[in-house]
């Protein structure tokens, strides 16, 4: 398996994808050139074939050190740490302050977001000048405690209620910690995503893919039953 970041081969990576929030990847790349800004993460099983997975993210931190680059990459445009622009609203749909918060920090709302959430009518809203991620959390809680949000492969933020589709991933279970609702699996690629369910119905809450010299191991945190 090959992982490329901005066209540069990754020696190793740990990729954490939560069901709610922003994913991040800690990567080691085989290059002395500084990476920055928006990057494309590609996973290939065969370099002559199209990637099996492509994700858009942003370099949040990192630099080369002795011919090797060490980076933290996050989903979207790394805008959730920035302060939202304070703004007060009268009666409005939830999408109005949500889009203002996102666009104010360089992020975008994915069009596949659940309109039952984004069309929710609010009697009013006050956006505070605090990190945009906190404001998004507060805003979506107004729609209900079962609302999720995360960055998709294209780099935009999806919001909605989980439908728990099949993960569509073949895997071998290598180990289990039932008391922690956690399993370790082996798969052909880092395609298991949170918000899906395994073939036995267990729901995936958080995924940590560890890639080292082309080998992949995945820790799966399951929703508590």
């Amino acid at each position, binding site marked *: 398996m090959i992982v490329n970041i901005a066209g540069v081969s990754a020696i190793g990576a740990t990729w954490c994808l939560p069901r709610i929030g922003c994913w991040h990847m800690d990567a080691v790349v085989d290059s002395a050139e500084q990476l920055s800004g928006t990057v494309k993460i590609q996973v290939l099983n065969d370099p002559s074939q199209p990637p099996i997975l492509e994700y858009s993210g942003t370099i949040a931190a990192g630099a080369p050190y002795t011919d090797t680059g060490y980076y933290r990459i996050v989903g979207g445009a790394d805008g959730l740490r920035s302060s939202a622009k*304070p703004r*007060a609203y009268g009666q409005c749909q939830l999408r109005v302050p949500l889009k203002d918060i996102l666009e104010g920090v360089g992020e975008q709302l994915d069009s596949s977001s659940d309109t039952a959430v984004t069309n929710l009518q609010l009697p009013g809203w*006050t956006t*505070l*000048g605090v990190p945009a991620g*906190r404001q998004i959390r507060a805003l979506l809680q*107004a729609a209900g405690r079962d609302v999720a949000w995360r960055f998709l492969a294209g780099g935009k933020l999806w919001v909605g209620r989980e439908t728990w589709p099949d993960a569509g991933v073949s895997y071998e279970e290598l180990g289990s910690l039932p008391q922690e609702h956690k399993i370790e699996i082996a798969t052909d690629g880092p395609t298991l995503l949170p918000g899906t369910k395994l073939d036995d119905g267990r729901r995936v809450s958080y995924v940590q893919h560890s890639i080292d010299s082309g080998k992949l191991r995945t820790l799966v945190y399951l929703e508590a039953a």
Partner: protein
Amino acid sequence: MAVPGMDRVKAALVALLGAGEPRVDYFTTYRAKVMKQSADMTKVDLKPDDARIPQCSDVRIKWGIPGVKAKIAPGCYMHLGWENGDPSKRYAMIIEDGATQLEITIEAVNAIYMGDKGAAKELATKDHVHDGSTITAPSGGGACSGVTGVPQGVGALTTILKGA
């Protein structure tokens, strides 16, 4: 992000908790200047002192005393809050000292008393009518002019508000 007085590990934990800078959230109230009040005296436009809180218009006022409303001069300060910490339900309350109250309305169903109810005379009831002129009363007591039914002993007034 560097935090004064903290090493990196603690700073990371504090950032995680969102406790690194003075918190601003929906569970307290914030001082704000009154920019404008609605004609019916029920709402105000507010400009908070803290720049992290936006200017808010048409914020309903919780006066705190049933039936009481006041017309206040812009420039005074009130407090902006959110009911039960709900960001969709803001309100204004507590007029700070120093506000100029241009008018006070007291809507009482039966009577308005000044002072201790047991010893006080009724200031106004639903049966009292004010003709709109200035009301004065001699300091030593005696009949008041300008309104019918006002008991003796009431001090000089410039305006009387009719009860409901």
